[in-house]
Each structure stands twice: as C-alpha cells, then as structure tokens.
C-alpha cells in the first residue's frame, strides 16, 4: 500500500505557502551544479521548470518527443490565462480566484494547492510580460482582460486567440536562452519510455531517439515529468495527435500512483464530428461564450435552417437554466446541457449532434468589425473546417474531450509517492479537482514550473548526497532498457492485419460511450469487459510495419495506443468505484431531480490514487482524504 502524505503545511490557508517557502531546505548556490535534474517535457510546465532550475544553477537535461520544444501541445491553447490581478476593479482577489477554482472543481481538489495557485497567478503575468509575451492591451497601454466560464469577474489575460502559443513561446525563449548558455542539455525527438527507480527513488529514464531508434539510459538526482494530458485515450479530442500518456503510464507501472483518472473534461464548444476519417476535433475557444449565445430549437426534429427559426421557437437553454452565469456556466455543466438537448432530439446539423453558438446579437450590438477583432481567427478556423461563414449563420458546436484533471498523484511539493519523481502541469492531478475552469491550466503549468518546483525540488535534493547519482550500468537501468526493447520487439513481431488506428478508434468509442459525458454502472461494467478483449485483439493482430532502427511513426503510435488501452481500463474502474457525481464525472445513478451532479461528501470526499500491482492483478485503490479546513463543501450553484 502506497503512503500518501499530502505534506500540506500547517497554519492559516493564506500563510501556508509563504511559511513553507521559509521552512523548506535549500541547496547552497555552489552545490547546485553538482545536482542533475531530468525534465521530461517542455510544454508550459516543463519549459518553465527546466529554464528556472537552470537559472538557479542546477544541471538540467530536458527531453521532448517533439522536434522542437516550441511544438508542445500548450501551443494550441486559445482563450487565456487567469490571474487575480483585479485590474478591472471588479472585486477580484486571490481569495476569489481560489474560491472559484475550488468550487469549479466541485470540491474535489486540495484547498492548500488551489490557494497557492491563486497566490502565484499574479507573478505569472508579471513574469510573462517581462519575457515579452504580447498580451492584449487597452488603448491606454495597460493590460486587457476578458471573462471566462465559472467566474463573475474579468480576470483572463489573453493574446488574441493564441494565448497558449504566446505563453509557450515565452517559456520556450527562456528555455532557449538556457540551452544557448549551455545550462540545459536539450534532447529533441527523444521519447521517454521508462522510468528508472533505484532503491525506491526515481533516478533516471530510458529514452528512444525517434529519428535514429537509438535507446539510451540517463541518470539524475531527480526526475520531473511534465508530459501533458492523456485525453487522446478518446482518440477524437481537441489534443494534438501526438499527446499521449506513455511517460506517466510507465511511471505508474513503476509504482507512482495514478490519481482520479476518470476526471476528464469535455469542452462544450467544439466543431462537431463530420466523418469517420476524422483525426481530431477543433476547439472553439470558451472566450466565444462572452459574446455568443447558445441555443437549440424548442421543438425536436425542427428541420428549418437557423435563420428560419423565429426567436419564439428558440431555446437559449443555458440562459434559461443558469440565469446568473448564462452562457458562461462551467464546462461540465454546459456540456451536459448540450448533450441533454441533443438526446431530446433537438440537436442541429446532419448528425443531430450539435447546438448553435450564435453571434447575431453581438454583431448587432458591437458591429462586425469589433467581433472580428475579438474572435476573427476563430471564425476563420471555423470557416476552413466547415466551409461555413459564422458571421452570417450561427456556428454549430458540440462537446469534445479537452483536458484531463486526473494524473499522477503528487503531494504539496509536486512530488509523487516515488521520492525524487516530480510531476508538473496537466500530467499531475493536483489543482483542478473534478472539473477545470477555463484559463486555469495555463496558469497551473506556469505556476508549477516558474514558482513551485524551483523551491520544492531543492527541498528534496538537499536530502540527497551530491554525486550520489547511480551509474547507468546498474541492474535497474539494464532491466528498464530491456523492458523497453522487449515492448518494441513484441509490437514489431506481431505482424498482424490491423493498423494501430483501428484499435485507437475502437478504444476511443468505448471510452466515449461509457466513460464520457455521462456514465452508468452497467456501461462501465461493459467497458471493463470490452477493453481487455480489445487489448488481446491488439496483442494478437496489430500490424506495425518497419523496423525499430529508424524513424517509425507506426511503432511510436503502437506503443502509445497500447498504453492508452491499459489506461482506459483504469479510467473505467475509477469511474465505476466513484459512486457519486462530481464535476466532469457524472454518474446517471447519482443526480439531483433537475439533472445536476449529486456529490457524496460522506463517502467520496477523497482522492482515489491507484497503485499498480502487476499486469495480472487488479490495481489497489488508495485514498487521500480531502480535509476542508477553511471552506465549506457546498452544492455548486450556478443558477
């Protein structure tokens, strides 16, 4: 049984982080260069961590599977990043951001972590501006804000519809600076395929060079995973195609606990699926809900075009159901509402799986140029994909998989239950509970990398003797390398008939149907039958052409999909055991009369952290109780 000590500092909520920073152990400047830290991933979390640790003087080795760190999936974030600056004078504060985020997560996150996130949010904006991130500005030259879901203040900073791009390019520039200065040893096209644990501590990784196929061993004093989310378990999602779970999954198989894997986020405003060839779903940023109004026909089966449906026959269902938040209701709530409307036969578009996002009012009120200035690039994307003009007719949108709140379990220091293994960004489970509010993932990634890990990694390293890094000739390294070689050889040797994509699509459908926007006991049980059968079919019939000694994209995909299949099973198991509804986890058996989530704080106010027990045994479910010292767990109300 794993020990899950959250290490939350004592003291008043608002003092915890400050107090912790003063009590934490430090590594003296001259000793820092004697410690080597491996950072896997260079999205917002990894790039900010790698450059910040290098600036402190640690030796840093950074690995990314991308051909450049600038291509990490963070680049695709559109809408914005939250910070409690209160520049709008609309009543925002660290406490309010804390409270909104905690409530948004349906009281399934740790109070202390969320409070720290809100505290450092203000430093993030300062840091990014200093790096040259070109945030939107008002005519007076000061920073502009917009509103996002789940908040009644305007605290979201943005750079047109490309906030993630600009923040990542900022972090990438810091990383590039430290690489150029020789402080970070950067390895691109390098995929981590195993974690090496020596004497119970994370001390290295096994890497495959994706271009040459060469497999290498790397040892370090600490290992940081910042490898992003696992939403591609659904196959169709708003993630980049390459995003995967391999790094955290293989760490799980080395003993790191996987927390709340069933907490996934379905984003309400994405372009609907158009055909079975489809490889990805495109997000239409939540920022559109500032000015767009969501509606569906009142009557089921209404075949008229949007323009022909008069006001009296339209149902602006979010405004009707949630008058105080309206179109800015949180994502899980907005998504389920859209699903219900479509389930009632009121969906629009050829598939009936869509609702309208309408800008006619905004265009009337602000004029088309103002709408174009705010959202032009999103309207362009919509046009490219659908060949439709959203200035003239409303967009059609449908929920799609967007974010994974679950991830590796970490304590307050962002260290997993394997000492020396730290997990940052979307790869950990820490701050978003059962539902993430918009514009808070970018905030968390940068908080972790710029402002948390620089302190907490030192606390761990101070307890390690410098120069005690194990040699890569050790038995643990050899065993891990053999494991990696064995996996690719098995995949290449199967020589079956089915392409990897066949299994990914099948898995995605099982998870979407049974562990998606709404879940039932029966559905999850059937998924738990189907997934092991799919895994067997995969092992027996997958076709992976080519060799391991060159760039082999089929082999890369096969390894990732094999991990997704196993993870999918764990997600369903987690969803089945959590006999309550909370945030993005909606169990049909547990709902209020009006269809809202019915939490069970008596029995489920805890983190479920799954521990691997071997391929043939069921994993162990450990729990970490969520003790709310300062906030009352109440029923989320957005009405």
């Amino acid at each position: 049984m794993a020990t899950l000590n959250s290490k939350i500092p004592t003291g008043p909520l608002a003092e915890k982080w400050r107090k912790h920073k003063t009590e934490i152990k430090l590594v003296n400047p001259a000793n820092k260069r004697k410690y080597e830290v491996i950072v896997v991933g260079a999205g917002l979390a990894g790039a900010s961590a790698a450059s910040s640790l290098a600036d402190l003087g640690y030796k840093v080795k950074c690995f990314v599977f991308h051909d450049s760190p600038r291509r990490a999936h963070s680049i695709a974030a559109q809408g914005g990043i939250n910070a409690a600056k209160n520049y709008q004078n609309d009543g925002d504060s660290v406490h309010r951001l804390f409270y909104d985020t905690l409530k948004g997560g349906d009281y399934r996150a740790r109070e202390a972590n969320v409070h720290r996130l809100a505290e450092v949010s203000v430093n993030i904006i300062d840091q990014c501006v200093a790096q040259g991130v070109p945030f939107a500005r008002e005519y007076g030259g000061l920073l502009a804000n917009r509103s996002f879901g789940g908040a009644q203040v305007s605290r979201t900073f943005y750079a047109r519809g490309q906030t993630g791009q600009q923040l990542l390019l900022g972090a990438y520039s810091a990383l590039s600076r430290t690489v150029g200065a020789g402080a970070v040893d950067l390895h691109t096209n390098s995929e981590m395929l195993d974690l090496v644990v020596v004497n119970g501590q994370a001390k290295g990784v096994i890497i495959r060079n994706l271009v040459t196929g060469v497999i290498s061993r790397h040892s370090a004093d600490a290992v940081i995973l910042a490898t992003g989310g696992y939403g591609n378990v659904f196959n169709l999602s708003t993630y980049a195609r390459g995003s995967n779970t391999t790094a955290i999954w293989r760490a799980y198989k080395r003993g790191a606990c996987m927390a709340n894997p069933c907490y996934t986020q379905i984003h309400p405003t994405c372009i609907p699926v158009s055909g079975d060839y489809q490889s990805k779903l495109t997000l239409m940023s939540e920022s559109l809900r500032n000015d767009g109004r969501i509606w569906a026909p009142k009557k089921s089966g209404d075949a008229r075009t949007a323009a022909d449906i008069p006001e009296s026959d339209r149902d602006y269902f979010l405004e009707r159901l949630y008058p105080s938040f309206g179109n800015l209701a949180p994502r899980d709530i907005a998504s389920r509402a859209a699903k219900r409307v479509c389930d009632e036969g009121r969906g629009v578009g050829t598939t009936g799986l869509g609702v309208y996002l309408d800008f006619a009012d905004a265009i009337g009120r602000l004029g088309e140029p103002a709408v174009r200035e705010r959202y032009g690039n999103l309207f362009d994307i919509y046009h490219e994909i659908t060949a439709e003009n959203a200035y003239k007719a409303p967009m059609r949108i449908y929920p799609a998989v967007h974010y994974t709140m679950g991830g590796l379990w970490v304590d307050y220091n962002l260290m997993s239950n394997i000492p020396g293994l730290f997990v940052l960004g979307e790869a950990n489970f820490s701050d978003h509970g059962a539902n993430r509010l918009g514009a808070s993932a970018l905030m968390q990634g940068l908080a972790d990398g710029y402002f948390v890990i620089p302190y907490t990694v030192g606390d761990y390293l101070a307890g390690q003797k410098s120069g005690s890094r194990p040699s890569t000739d050790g038995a643990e390294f050899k065993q891990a390398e053999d494991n990696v070689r064995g996996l690719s050889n098995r995949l290449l040797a199967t020589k079956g008939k089915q392409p990897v994509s066949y299994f990914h699509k099948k898995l995605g459908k099982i998870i979407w149907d049974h562990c998606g926007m709404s879940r039932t006991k029966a559905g999850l049980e059937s998924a738990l039958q189907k997934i092991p059968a799919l895994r067997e079919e995969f092992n027996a019939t997958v076709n992976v052409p080519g060799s391991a000694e060159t760039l082999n994209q089929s082999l890369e995909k096969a390894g990732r999909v094999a991990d997704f299949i196993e993870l999918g099973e764990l997600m369903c198991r987690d969803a089945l055991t959590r006999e309550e509804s909370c945030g993005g986890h909606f169990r049909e058996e547990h709902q209020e009369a009006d269809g809202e989530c019915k939490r069970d704080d008596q029995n489920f106010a805890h983190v479920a952290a799954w521990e691997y027990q071997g391929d043939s045994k069921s994993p162990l479910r450990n729990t970490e109780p969520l003790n709310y010292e300062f906030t009352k767990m109440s029923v989320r109300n957005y009405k």
Partner: protein
Amino acid sequence: MVAVNTQKLFSVTLRVWRQAGPAQPGKFVEYPAKDLNPNMSFLEMLDVVNDELAAQGIEPIAFAHDCREGICGTCSCTINGKPHGPGKGVATCQTYMRSFSDGDTIVVEPFRARAFPVIKDLVIDRAAFDKIQQAGGFITARAGSAPEANALPIAKGDADLAMDAAQCIGCGACVAACKNASAMLFVSAKVSHLGLLPQGQAERDRRVLAMVNTMDALGFGSCTNQYECSAACPKLISHDFIARMNRDYVKASFRSAFKAAPANTSGGGA
C-alpha cells in the same frame, strides 16, 4: 438544419517523395487515394492512404504533424510545388480535400532547403531554427525577477504589431518558398516581436546581431526581396518585418563597431 455537404466522394493520385533516410536517395512514387470526402483534411487523406499501404505490406509515408489546427508548425509538406499547398494563410494541416478535384495528380514533397535536411519521406530536420532562437531569440528575465506587469504601459499599436510578428509558428515554409532558402522572414518576425517592446530594448542590438549571424552560419541563403516567403507563410507574416530587421541590424552593427551607447530604451522601436 444546416446545408448538407452533398459533394460526392472522389479520387486522386498522389506522387509522393519517398526517402528511406537522410543518406539514402529519394524518389517520387505514385499511389492512388480513393473514396475521398471533400471535408477531409489533407493529412486525414494521408492517414487513410497510410493504413491502406500498411495493409499491402508497404511502409506508410512518414509525415510530420501534431496539432492539426495550424498552430504548432510541425506539418511541412510542399503540395504541387507550394509549401503548405494551395490555400493562402494556412498550414498543410489546414488544407482540405475540397481544394482538389476528382482525377487530380497531387505532388507531395518535403519542404526543401539546404538547412533543412530530409530525415525520412516528408519529414525534415528544422533544428537550425532552434539554434537561431538559442543564439538570441529571448528577453533575459529570470523567474522571480519581474516587475509588476502594469508598471510598463505599452501603446496598443506597438503591442498589436509585436503580436503580428509573434504569431510565427516556426514552420519553415518561408525558407522552402524562397529560391535562396533564406530564413529572413522567420528571423525578422522574432527580432521584430521582441524589438518592438520596451522590455526588449536592453538586448536589442545583441539579439539582432546574434540571430542574423547564426542564421548565416547555419547555411540559410540571403534575401533578394522576392517576398515568396510572405506569400507562403501560413500566418501571412509581413515582409515589412524584414526591412525593419535590416535597419536594426545596420544600426546594431554600427553601434557595436563603435561601441557607442545601446539602442534607445524608450520603447516602441524604430
């Protein structure tokens, strides 16, 4: 209901560059691509073709991609001679099959440039771009050292122009489109983005000199003002940034030769 796309399924022939590795010779090979839906993206078409090739025991075509929405800069195909294909202001991944007609032969190659060697088939090595960034594409601001963000107002016009330049996705289409394989558009976008902001002034001279000199050393050609780069750029980055960088470069060279004071620190930029 919204208009149904009634276009019929159609077929094309692909003439694709196949090259087993960096040191091996490459050649064009033809494959049929059948039953295509006009709403498929170009890369989705390649996915379908690849599954068919694999089923026939032929190794799938290696191609680079990730976000599939025009922002990561990974995709990099030259389609019918045009980097990123026929559309204006879009990347390869934002090219849809509705841009082609039944019976077309579509020629697909990797971006070609001396500084971007082919790794395999349609995949190229663009590490040179990272090296240019590492030489100077940053503002030095260690975490923890930043002043209050609103202490430094920036005129909206300057911020907007900086953002126009900052949108570059680092794809390299500009290099592939240029007959000299020059990287001037890419480099000028970064130099201008940072040089337009007051925060970027302290390192302005150093940055432009280091980035341009590194670019030259990495084997990119020189700019002869043909502006094929801007036309191929998926973000339509303006070639005006090249002129801006040239001015910066001259001034910086002058100042560094005479070791005079650094560039003005009042912000806004020349």
